[in-house]
């Protein structure tokens, strides 16, 4: 399982049970990243994908269901309990600050930064994508 997570400059994920930000081009990048495989997510995250691409697999227990090598978009779930199942991590950094009361819970110790990309989002000047492997 590979988890994709969006983070602000302070590793924030959520404020008041809501995502900090969103971006159309980031979602398009997620679809590309899923390739021919599924993109697992919960109903809260799926609502952003207006065109509902065929690769979406929506389930509240998606972290349990996702198989080896499959991509999960994680916005409002605590990954701590799933750390052992993670084969890869994709961190999308907004390069902005937002209010946060939930932050990314995992340490990157033991992870190798395999590649970094930068791209302009639809409403973000620069989104940094960091791909980590074990």
């Amino acid at each position, binding site marked *: 399982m590979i988890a994709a997570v969006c983070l*602000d*400059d*302070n*590793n924030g994920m959520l*404020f*008041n049970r*809501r995502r*900090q*930000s*969103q*971006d*159309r081009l980031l979602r398009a990048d997620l679809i590309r990243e899923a390739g021919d495989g599924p993109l697992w997510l919960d109903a809260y995250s799926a609502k952003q994908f207006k065109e509902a691409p065929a690769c979406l697999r929506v389930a509240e227990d998606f972290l349990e269901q996702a198989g080896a090598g499959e991509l999960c978009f994680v916005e409002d779930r605590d990954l701590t309990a799933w750390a052992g199942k993670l084969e890869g991590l994709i961190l999308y950094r907004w390069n*902005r*600050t*937002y*209010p*946060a*009361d939930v*932050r*990314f*819970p*995992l*340490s*990157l*110790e033991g992870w190798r930064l395999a590649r970094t990309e930068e791209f302009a989002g*639809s*409403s*973000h000047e620069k989104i940094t994508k960091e791909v980590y492997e074990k």
Partner: protein
Amino acid sequence: MKRWKLCLTALALSLCLLLPAGCGMPMEGGGDSYDIAWTLDDIPDYAGEPYVVLNDNQPEFSEEYMTTDSFETYGELDELGRCTMCWANIGVDLMPTESRESISSVKPTGWIQNQYDFVDGKSLYNRCHLIGFQLTGENANGQNLITGTRYLNVVGMLPFENMVADYVKETENHVLYRVTPLYEDGELVARGVHMEGYSVEDGGEGVCFNVYCYNVQPGVEIDYTTGENWAADADNGGDAAEVTYVLNTSSKKFHLPDCSGAKNMKEENRQDYTGTREMLIQQGYTPCGQCKP
């Protein structure tokens, strides 16, 4: 193009601040915008975090303002020349299409500027937009600019403005947005600002907050009556013990070395530090909310 712009009367605003909870403020355009008016008595003292959540993060807009028409209103200056409540229904049509212009012609009340080496950008005070430029494109509007510390502007208010701006740009929905400076009696500098936001079309699913941001600057003492300010004495209060912390030079947060925030920090932003907590705070750093160093 901006749909409409109102100026509140000082009288109406005074009423708003005086009325007890449950009483609204009569406004141009009809109706009441406030169900509850917060006062400084309701706000806890600053305790190291840039903002505090009010009313379980539920804003207090009257139902009748849940509209999909954009608007922006800037309260008239009060009898002391101070800014008052500003509020808007932010839509993409209000957002700036041109670069920001100079706002240095505006001198808000209590503007006694001083420089400190430990303040980001050195200047203590910013002309702090109540409704941020990125939301409604207001430049040198004296009814929208207060004397605010760098910390209030960048650490306190900006994250909320960013959140609202992104949401509106991405969804093209509207966000009801209200910012009210709170003053102690006749003081010229606000103690802080009350900020509320609520996304209209999705009933608050996208944006929903109710917070108070403190107009303080760690390491600086402020006389809010006049705006005079001076460096706090490092020997007064605080823990003098030397401890090792990890600093994020970008976000100005400090962490314990084993905090995940420290471990995940970008290398270019990371700086190891051994010294007193008090000195870090004086340099404008704030403790991480997760590891609470």
